[in-house]
């Protein structure tokens, strides 16, 4: 088993915790994305796993053996971990083939075998014809492919991706995403993928670990993150979810319960065992808001902004009773809402965010 286990890891720099009691288990062959805003500690996590930083508390094991703990720190060169760096980190003084063959040369692999394996790695990323080029003469996407081949050639038990698409333009990103997914399917390598881009994480990962301020917020599949966020941070971070104050009115029954939100009574999905409570929060999506005509059930308020985005407008709305609760939803053509206008809306569904501490 070549999985990765991060166990109660804490890392502090001069008193402040960059990572605070983080535990993540990555199964063998899993593609796990670590997602979070900048400064959330995801890069620190990667550097700890690679061995560039030492843990302050907890331990990291790769393939069942401990590599980082407070007593022991296996140096990066002994971890058999591959890294694809954000800025590729290709050595400018070596050709593409030399870059890829470096790890084998260091490991004193014989010349014939080395050449064969470099060739194989180049083929894997469709770069055979570029073996003798210098990195400076390659495009961004080509460089990233070389970097990928370089980390594969040593057959690492674990590959770490450090925001590998951040420096590429939008079109290239989509095609590299496909290549990464394809690569994972073919090789079955365990991958830990650091990113701040949700779409990227959703598209690629089996599971996503959302981090904020050095803490693990939720570790779940992309679907679960979207539909059942464990806390307010995840709810609002993923796809700009709206978090609204609500009172729970009934016990959970078949995964649903009744709540009162903005004066409207609504049935929302919830975790097992929820009971009535006040000051709860629900998460709802733009698609779960609709306009009501006449005096139907719902709540009135003012349109604060309406921005036409082609085919539909993004409408921002402030309910009368709760002036600091901004809602937003899309109105398809024909767009009728205008800033300053009055409207009546209702929620169609939502998710009851579990009470804090019941993660």
């Amino acid at each position, binding site marked *: 088993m070549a999985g990765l286990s991060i166990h109660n890891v804490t890392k502090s720099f001069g008193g402040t915790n960059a990572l605070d009691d983080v535990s993540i288990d990555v199964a063998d062959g899993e593609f796990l994305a670590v997602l979070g805003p900048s400064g959330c500690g995801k890069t620190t996590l990667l550097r700890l796993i690679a061995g560039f930083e030492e843990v302050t508390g907890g331990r990291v094991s790769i393939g069942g053996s401990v590599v980082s703990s407070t007593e022991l720190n296996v140096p*990066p060169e002994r971890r*058999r971990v*591959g890294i694809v*760096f954000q*800025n590729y980190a290709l*050595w400018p003084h070596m050709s593409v083939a030399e870059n890829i063959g470096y790890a084998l040369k*260091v490991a004193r692999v014989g010349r014939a075998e080395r050449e064969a394996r470099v060739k194989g790695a180049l083929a894997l990323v469709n770069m055979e014809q570029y073996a003798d080029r210098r990195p400076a003469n390659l495009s961004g996407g080509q460089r990233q492919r070389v970097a990928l081949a*370089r980390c594969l050639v040593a057959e690492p038990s674990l590959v770490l991706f450090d925001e590998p698409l951040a420096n590429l333009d939008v079109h290239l990103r989509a095609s590299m995403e496909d290549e990464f997914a394809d690569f994972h399917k073919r090789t079955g390598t365990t991958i830990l993928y650091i990113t701040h881009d949700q779409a990227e994480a959703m598209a690629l990962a089996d599971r996503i670990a959302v981090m904020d301020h050095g803490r693990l917020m939720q570790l779940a599949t992309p679907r679960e993150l979207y539909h059942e966020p464990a806390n307010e941070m995840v709810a609002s971070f993923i796809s700009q979810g709206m978090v609204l104050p609500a009172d729970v009115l009934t016990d959970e029954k078949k995964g649903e319960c009744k709540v009162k939100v903005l004066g409207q009574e609504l049935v929302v999905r919830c975790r097992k065992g929820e009971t009535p409570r006040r000051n709860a929060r629900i998460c709802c999506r733009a698609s779960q808001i609709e306009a009501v005509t006449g005096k139907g059930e719902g709540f009135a308020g003012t349109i604060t902004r309406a921005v036409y985005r082609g085919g539909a407008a993004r409408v921002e709305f402030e309910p009368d009773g709760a002036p600091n609760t901004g809602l937003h939803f899309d109105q398809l053509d024909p767009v009728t809402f205008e800033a300053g206008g009055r409207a009546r809306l209702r929620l169609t569904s939502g998710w009851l965010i579990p009470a804090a501490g019941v993660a």
Partner: protein
Amino acid sequence: MTVAFKERQGQQMALTVGIVVLIVVLSLLPMARLLQEVVLPGGRFSLDIIRSGLVDNTTWVATWNTVYVGLGGTLLALVLGVAVALLVSLSDVRQRQAFVLCFVTPLMIAPQVTALAWLQVFGPSSPMLDLLGMAPPLGTPNPLYSPEGIVLLLGIQYAPLVFLIVRAGLRKLPRELVEAAQSSGASWFRVLRTVILPLMTPSIVGAAALTFVSCVGNFGIPAFLGIPANYLVLPTLIYQRLAGGGPAVLSEVAFLSVLIGIIAMVGILLQDRIAKRRDFRITSTSLPAAPYRLGRWRIPVEIGMWLLIAFILVLPLIGLILTSLVRGYGVTLSADTATLENYRFVILEHAAAKRAFVNSLYLSATAAIFAVFVAIPLAYAIAWGKHRWVKALNLAIELPYALPGVVLAIASLLLFLKPMPITGIHIYNTVWIILYAYLARFLVLAVRPTITGYFQLDRALEEAAQVAGAGLFTRMRTIIFPLIAPAAIAGGLLIFMTALSELTVSALLWSSGSETIGVIIFSFEQGGDSKYAAAVSAIMVATTFLLMLLASLFANRLPDGVLPWRD
């Protein structure tokens, strides 16, 4: 796995130990020995040496003279350097690159060569004045043999230093700050006075401190210009005492060199105080401000700038070359009397001169090569190391260079006067003691550009090699060395150029058989053989130009600002 693990840890340990040993041997040991001689002579605490130094009147006269020429030279260098930096950076003068090259060149030429060249321009035996029919009668003193002469030459020698530092500061000045002031209605001079100059305070004060330290520690210029007029500064006083009294006066001159060290330190501390008084930090980076249009003043300003070059560079060099061509003192130079005999004599005939060329070549090449190889791991520890003692490390390497050269020379003398313990090797009075002093003094010249190089290098390049399984030494050899070598080699070249005609250190450490080029020029001049001194100097200037050209050839592979004369 544990064996391999230990081996890698061992490499890290070896690097650390190596660096610590180096710092101790090249920086801490000599400085400690010097202080011990002054305060703890013979192992017992005593203030006798300090007391006898303080009651000696010549100490006070020399100290006053040192401070006087130090401040004077600094002031002149500041005025010249800042003015030129402002013109070159902020106005639309043309031919900038060529001008900067010419303006910075005096810094590359050894001070004693500068002094010698200037002496040939004025004075009764000046072939140039003679050619123009303006030479004063033989026997009248050269006007440069005076404190004012020393101040003038110190100012010209170090104006490029001020220029380089202030220019670097001006390059970082964001144009928004200038444009904001302009759009508030301020005229260009007002912007200069109220925005640009205040923001440049750290650069200007830093340059002033560095120049002051350099002026105070300069030996070549006061030796050539001051000794004939019996105007002594501390470095020349030390030289004279030591030349007259030998090792017997070592503790006495140790006190004097500590005194110079203290004067230099005061300069540095004062700079620190001023720089911390206000917040001068510039937060944003952007394009440089649009150049100020000089309009109809452009041509006059450009003429003025090139006249300056003619005055500080061309004139003395012509003087030097003309003197190197004369047959003898007082012989009028003409196409008929010009001769290359002086060059032939110093290269082929004069035994000590021939030795000096070989010695200086070996010394500076060895020092440069050693520094390149040491600078790469050393700068690695400083730039990329995680440890806290790294800052102290940097300071320790800067110390032998920051303090005037005489300080290190005297410290080396004290350290090696007796045979070394255990090995019994005795390097006093050999060429090796000069090599030791060169290594200690000039190492920082290679370390600085190498550190800059590391900061411009993406650390991920090393980390990528690390995750590929490469240990520290393998990474050093295969990744770091090839990438950082150009910067380190450029530093090595600076060392080579500086050490080749160095005088301050070798004047105090040389012995018969271990003469250096600097010493030879000095002794020719002292013996009245200006023509030979000029010939050797002319060869050195030509060598310097060649080396500058050589370094410029691979300039585009170097980090910015490594070659001082490249704009």
